[in-house]
Every structure is written in structure tokens, then in C-alpha cells.
């Protein structure tokens, strides 16, 4: 019996592989019966081939079990990898920026675009449920931009990006910033074909955001802590926020900055310039 996971069986090495996710193959040194991980017991090989039960079954029909093991997000992932192929072919680096509403994505983009002027070509896809406000802000910087309004949708998906690209036609070799819909949950599930994911939290939020919304932080490459100009006025503990985030994703790169004053932004700009 394995004490660590309490799964009650030990024996031959078992190969645990996740169907539909080909990038994870794990050979394990000890055996686990992981049926305990389902909340109700049932066998996976139902033999319902010719099951004649007059209560729930019409005569003249037969039941058949179709095994699928199909990834529900498979279609989005496929479109995302097409987007990613498109980016690669055109030498475009796509960055997916995600945060709660109001953490400062658009403000950071405005400053970033200024800072990259003359150094990199840029293009922007703005995602919001409604309004053209953010696209208009970006437009004022002179950068090419399209807005995706998702209506009730709380995230961008790969198809929306594909459509936006047709309109935007970003130049070869440019940095494509994708500002996702302000939401710390949904966007993390939908790959867009981006090179990197950037999650932004601001010091006016709780430092426990990373543990409250682990999925977002788990999939990010960079975590930006924004609005550091407000640190003297709030209780936000930067060290604590970082250690929370690291507990979810030890590989995260952190940057502390103020998109408003520009303090600390140079590290972010350097990180972008080092891409490609």
C-alpha cells in the first residue's frame, strides 16, 4: 500500500498515459490502482451490445457503446496550432496577455508600443466583450490593431484569432500582442497559438490571486506585478504574491512594474527584445 497517495495497491510498474495528450508519457516505478480517482465506480467496458430492457429501450433498436476518448478542446487546439504555424512562417511572435479586468493590460500595451518604436514592428488584437475603447486607445499610439468583441464570451479562442488575423494582416517579423478578455479563469483554457502567456496582477488585488486562480498562473510564462507606484498606499505584499505564484508554477518569470509611471518597464521591454 502506497501511503503517499493512499491508493491501496502496489505491484507491477504501470504506464500512466493520458489519451488525447500525446506529449505526456510516464512510466512509473510503482503501481497504482487509480480507479479511486473517479467519483463513482463503474467499469469502462460496458457490454451493452444487445441489452433488451423493456423499460428504457424500444424494440427494434440496439444499443452501441462508441469509445471516443476525444479531447473536448481538440478543435480549438488544432486551430491554435494552425495559428502558431502561421506565426512561425511569418516570423511573428504572439504574446497572450491575461488578467482580471482593470489590472492594466491596455495601459501596459500603450507604454510598450511607445518603448518598442523603431525597435520592433508591433500589432495588437484587443479582446473585450463589448466596445471599441481599448482598440481606440491602441490606435492612438499608431500601432495596427483590431478589436474582437466576444459578446457574452469571456475569453478569446483560436478561431477568433484566426478571423482577426485576416483583418489585421500583421507584418512579417512583428510582435503581436493579444489582449485577452479581462478574466482570470476562462482565457487560460483556450490556446490561441501564442508563443508565450503573460499574466498580470496589480497591487490593488489580493496577493493570493495565484492560489485562487491557479490554472491561469500554471500556464503562464511571465507574471507581471503592475501598479507598483501604488505600493505605499496598499497592503499588497510582493514577496508573498511571488511565493504564492511560485507554489503553483515554479518556472514563472516575475517582473514588477508600473505601467503608469514606467518604473520597471525596461525589464519587460528587454524580455520582449530578447524574444525571437
Amino acid at each position: 500500500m502506497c501511503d503517499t497517495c493512499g491508493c491501496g495497491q502496489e505491484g507491477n510498474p504501470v504506464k500512466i498515459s493520458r489519451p488525447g495528450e500525446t506529449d505526456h508519457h510516464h512510466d512509473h516505478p510503482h503501481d497504482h490502482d487509480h480507479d479511486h480517482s473517479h467519483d463513482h465506480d463503474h467499469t469502462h467496458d460496458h457490454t451493452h451490445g444487445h441489452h433488451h430492457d423493456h423499460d428504457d429501450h424500444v424494440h427494434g433498436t440496439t444499443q452501441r457503446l462508441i469509445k471516443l476518448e476525444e479531447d473536448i478542446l481538440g478543435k480549438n487546439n488544432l486551430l491554435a496550432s494552425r495559428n502558431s504555424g502561421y506565426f512561425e512562417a511569418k516570423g511573428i511572435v504572439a504574446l497572450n496577455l491575461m488578467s482580471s479586468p482593470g489590472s492594466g493590460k491596455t495601459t501596459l500595451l500603450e507604454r510598450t508600443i511607445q518603448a518598442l518604436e523603431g525597435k520592433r514592428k508591433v500589432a495588437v488584437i484587443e479582446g473585450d466583450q463589448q466596445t471599441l475603447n481599448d482598440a481606440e486607445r491602441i490606435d492612438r499610439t499608431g500601432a495596427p490593431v483590431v478589436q474582437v468583441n466576444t459578446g457574452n464570451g469571456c475569453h478569446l479562442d483560436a478561431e477568433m484569432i484566426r478571423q482577426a488575423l485576416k483583418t489585421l494582416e500583421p507584418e512579417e517579423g512583428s510582435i503581436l500582442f493579444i489582449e485577452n478578455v479581462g478574466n482570470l479563469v476562462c482565457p487560460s483554457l483556450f490556446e490561441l497559438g501564442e508563443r508565450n502567456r503573460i499574466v498580470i496582477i496589480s497591487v490593488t488585488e489580493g496577493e493570493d490571486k495565484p492560489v485562487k486562480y491557479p490554472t491561469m498562473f500554471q500556464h503562464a510564462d511571465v507574471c507581471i506585478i503592475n501598479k507598483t507606484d501604488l505600493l505605499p498606499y496598499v497592503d499588497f505584499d510582493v514577496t508573498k504574491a511571488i511565493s504564492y505564484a511560485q507554489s503553483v508554477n515554479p518556472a514563472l518569470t516575475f517582473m514588477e512594474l508600473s505601467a503608469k509611471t514606467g518604473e520597471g518597464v525596461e525589464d519587460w521591454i528587454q524580455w520582449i527584445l530578447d524574444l525571437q
Partner: protein
Amino acid sequence: MHELSIAISIVDIASRQAEAASAMSVSRVELDIGTMSGIEYESLKFALSVAVKDSILEGTEFRINRVEPLCECLSCTHLFIPNGLFGQCPECGEKNTSLIRGKELQIKSLLVEQKE
């Protein structure tokens, strides 16, 4: 509510399969949904009830298997159930671990009714 997008994908995939099998109806769809997949089970159930409208899946039973998380230590390959969040390896203390179960978002199977 991303659960609605997920529910719509489920209905799309399952309807396509049912059609391919010339099914008259679908009695059950079995799903594996990891507790770390970012899906709220109650929201998903509700979203499914909305997404099935006017599809072959109206009246279908959705069996949702909750898949609990399992971590593998990237240093000593020990397998363990993460304590709350992704944790540290209880054997060697390594923080670099990979979640090998618990993120499932998968349609396992369809039970369809066909003409005899």
C-alpha cells in the same frame, strides 16, 4: 462562462459521432473532467442542459467522472496526490512536479441507440 463553450464543444463532437453512427438517439455520454481542468461541475451541468437544446442530445444522460489530481515528481519520479495545490514532492522535497492527471477534459464514450 467558459463552461458554455465547453458544453457546446461536447454537444458538437457527440452529435457528429452519433450522426456518423446513424444513431437514432444517444442514451448516455460519459465525460472525464479533471478537478484541475478549470471547470466548475455545476456550471458545466447547467451549460449542458442549455447546449443540448434542439440537438440529438436532448434527453441524454451525461455521466461526469471527476478525475482527481495526481502529480509526478520531476526529480525522483514519485507519484503523489497534491495537497491542495501543486505541491512539493513528499519524498524528496522537489518543487518541480508535473500534474499528470486532473486536467482531463475528455469525452470518453457515447451510448447510442441504433436500428437493429
